């Protein structure tokens, strides 16, 4: 039986005033419309919906939930839980502005929807009330709510923070609460729109583990749109790839990898580390592109996806000596001019706390940043990374210690949410904002927008851009001030693999021009690729400051996926490049 069945489904946003009305992901030249979508999601399956940003993932998910369905014209057949509830099998004919025709009562209860923004989804002020909210809306009597809320809270491990205020929860707890608040209504189909995009890696894993449990133990059908494949690909039964408004591929993970390697090499960077490693090794090993996994549709050994599989794969390959054995430690990358120059920014014994009675967040930070370097500070959520950055930026004054800058240097900070930086109605106006004070011209802006690929959005509202484009726009706004030091707070938050690659490129460009970058992040793979020096912020102190390569190679747990795959097999490999250098 199918939970979702789309037959030749088409959807288009209405045309208003000659311009297409954008909603959800619709920020590209034309908002993502759906064309001839055919997709079946079996009951009880875990289906992953992936695709580039702006390909229509959100639109497709929203079309399956009548309450959230965007306004537009649609045709074709949509069956949602067709046999369970009589809400499916209604072919909606072309009627501009109409909502789909299936009965709302069914989908209200049986289809649950989790959105990307964990915080904005929370409606009430306390955890227990949030859990009860959906049931209250359905008019369930108080006693029944009491039982179901209690049951749900126990199942999701919420009992410990049941009485807390929702504003005091961590991001991961918030998203878990959102899932629980939907599960309390006992849906049969869960639709999730990039639920882990805003979470840190640890919270992401926890959330996905819970989601897998819901799928495995309760048999709830899961359809999740994600760009974070590292953790979702191992979980799913089916992968559907949506490319420019239509389903380009649907099948299991192995078939998807083979398809990707053959037809869509551009998407490979989004795949899990183990898979990328295998594909890359295959390619260089055979000397010709698109060979190996791409062609062996029915091969004996499946392509590795998880770190465990990656390690097994690597061991076998090494046994059959396809890869050279553990030859030697890679030469540590030594920067020629790393210590001969005076540091640009020095922090000495920084102590900072938000209140006299609260425990200090920073306890004796020592930091030196060299010119032209990328210094990354990694650490768990709540370890004080953002606080450190704001102290360095001069937003907060340290209670003890001092930040010394070389004279007349300009600092610019990219906040965690780039929305905090925008204050005008169009991107162009926004970028013009500081032109008088910092003396730059429109021509400069236009050149910068061109090089950032933002020229097409000059007259759009900054909020209508995608996460990646907002990040770029905010970065552009900062670069116009010609800062000597860029401070970046979680620059990869909410970005997909491609936006990350792009960001990496921009950072390289900036350092080549002589800018210095300090970034805080929990995205270890990103940091491993773009930073020169890394420090771990733990318990208010910076621990283990070292060149990136040495930093990660020395860590056992807190390190990149590639390092975890190659640990003990190919020592000294931190990124994919390192492994390929072995070949």
């Amino acid at each position, binding site marked *: 039986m199918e939970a979702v069945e789309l037959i030749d489904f088409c959807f288009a946003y209405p045309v208003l005033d000659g311009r297409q009305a954008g909603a959800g992901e619709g920020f590209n030249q034309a908002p993502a419309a759906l064309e001839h979508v055919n997709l079946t999601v079996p009951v009880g399956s875990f289906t992953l919906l992936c695709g580039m940003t702006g390909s229509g993932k959100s639109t497709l998910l929203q079309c399956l939930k009548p309450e959230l369905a965007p306004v537009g014209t649609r045709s074709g057949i949509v069956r949602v839980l067709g046999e369970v509830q009589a809400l499916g099998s209604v072919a909606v004919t072309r009627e501009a502005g109409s909502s789909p025709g299936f009965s709302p*009562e069914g989908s209200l*209860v049986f289809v649950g929807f989790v959105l990307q923004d964990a915080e*904005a989804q929370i409606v009430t002020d306390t955890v227990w009330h949030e859990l*009860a909210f959906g049931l209250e809306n359905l*008019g369930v*009597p108080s006693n029944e709510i009491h039982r179901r809320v209690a049951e749900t809270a126990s199942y999701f491990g919420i009992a410990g923070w049941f009485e807390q205020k929702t504003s005091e929860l961590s991001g991961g707890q918030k998203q878990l609460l959102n899932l629980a608040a939907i599960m309390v209504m006992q849906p049969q189909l869960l639709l999730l729109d990039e639920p882990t995009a805003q979470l840190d890696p640890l919270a992401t894993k926890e959330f996905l583990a819970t989601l897998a449990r819901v799928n495995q133990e309760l048999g709830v059908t899961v359809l999740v749109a994600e760009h974070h494949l590292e953790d979702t690909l191992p979980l799913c039964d089916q992968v559907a790839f949506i490319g420019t408004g239509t389903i380009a591929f649907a099948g299991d993970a192995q078939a998807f990898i083979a398809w990707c390697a053959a037809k869509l090499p551009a998407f490979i960077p989004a795949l899990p580390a183990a898979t990328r490693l295998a594909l890359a090794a295959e390619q260089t090993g055979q000397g010709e592109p698109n060979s190996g996994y791409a062609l062996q549709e029915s091969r004996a050994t499946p392509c590795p996806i998880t770190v465990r599989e990656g390690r097994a794969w690597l061991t076998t390959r090494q046994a059959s000596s396809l890869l050279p054995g553990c030859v030697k430690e890679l030469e540590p990358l030594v920067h020629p001019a790393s210590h001969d120059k005076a540091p640009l920014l020095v922090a000495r014994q920084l102590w900072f706390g938000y209140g006299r009675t609260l425990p200090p967040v920073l306890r004796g930070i020592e930091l030196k940043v060299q010119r032209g370097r990328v210094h990354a500070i990694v650490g768990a959520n709540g370890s004080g990374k953002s606080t450190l950055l*704001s102290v360095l930026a001069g937003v907060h004054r340290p209670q003890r210690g001092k930040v010394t800058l070389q004279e007349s240097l300009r600092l610019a900070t990219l906040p965690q949410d780039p929305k905090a930086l925008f204050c005008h109605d169009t991107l162009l106006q926004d970028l013009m904002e*500081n032109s008088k004070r910092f003396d730059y011209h429109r021509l400069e802006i236009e050149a910068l927008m061109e090089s950032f690929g933002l020229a097409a959005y000059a007259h759009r509202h900054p909020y209508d851009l995608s996460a990646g484009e907002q990040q770029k726009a905010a970065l552009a706004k900062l670069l116009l001030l010609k800062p000597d030091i860029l401070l970046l707070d979680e620059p990869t938050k909410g970005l997909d693999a491609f936006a990350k690659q792009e960001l990496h490129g921009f950072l390289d460009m900036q350092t080549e021009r002589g800018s210095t970058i300090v970034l805080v992040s929990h995205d270890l793979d990103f940091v491993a690729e773009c930073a020169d020096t890394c420090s771990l912020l733990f318990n208010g102190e910076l621990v283990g400051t070292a060149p990136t390569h040495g930093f990660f190679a020395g860590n056992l747990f807190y390190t990149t996926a590639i390092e975890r795959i190659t640990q003990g097999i190919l020592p000294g490999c931190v990124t994919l490049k390192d492994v390929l250098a072995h070949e």
Partner: protein
Amino acid sequence: MKTYHPLVIFLFFVAAIALTMCALHPVLSVMAVAAAAAWAICLKGCHAFLGMLGFYLGVVVVMTVFNALFNTVGLTVLFYVGSMPVTAEALVFGLSSGALLVAVLTWFSCYQEVMGADKFLALFGRVLPTTSMMITLVFGFIPGVLERGRSIANARKALVGEEKSLKAGVRLASVLMGWSMETGLITAASMKARAYGSTQRSTYLNMRWTLRDTVALVLLLALTAAAVAAAVVTLSGFRFYPYLTPLHADWLYAPYALLLVLPLLLEGGERLRWRLSSL
């Protein structure tokens, strides 16, 4: 007291605050301060209370000094400030009214601690479902708005330095508004996806009415009635001006005092029983 039904808690505060405010009397007001302070210490710890003590003492001193200097109605002159007589009656009146004010403030701080918005809403949710839902929404929304406001202000500060002009304030407000509305759209979608507005809502109370609530309520009502009667008698026989009515120990103070220390008694009883049962 926290573990009692919100109705009991709410009624206690109504009784305690109303009585404290109506009974301006040297002994009664001082008793009210003592009871309120004792409970505040019990609830929030000595440290938090000492933090507020300076402010409270300030209130009392200001009230006393002002009344003593500018009120010359009393007849027992203690000394002169310039040509102004300072009377004992005015001094006592100032002290009592200062004590009264501090007592009321302390009751309210206890109320914040014990009752909280969620219990108030739970209590009145049935009577005013729409209003209470709206208040819940607002309470859920405010922390996020504050957080966003902080992040916008910090981003500005890091970008162009501190701005204190009116223009900067207006801009911050407008950015905050735009961003919050953007967030509000998602909240609205989330509400819609969870069947908000589909049928008549029910109201879930995270607390039950138990026997001990009944006992506490009966006790509370009886003590309130006695305290009101006693206070009326006490106050009718008392005058600040022109001469202070002489004060002496009186059984009539007892019901008033008992009512105000009721939460402490209930709390103490609870702790005693806990001790005994875990022996």
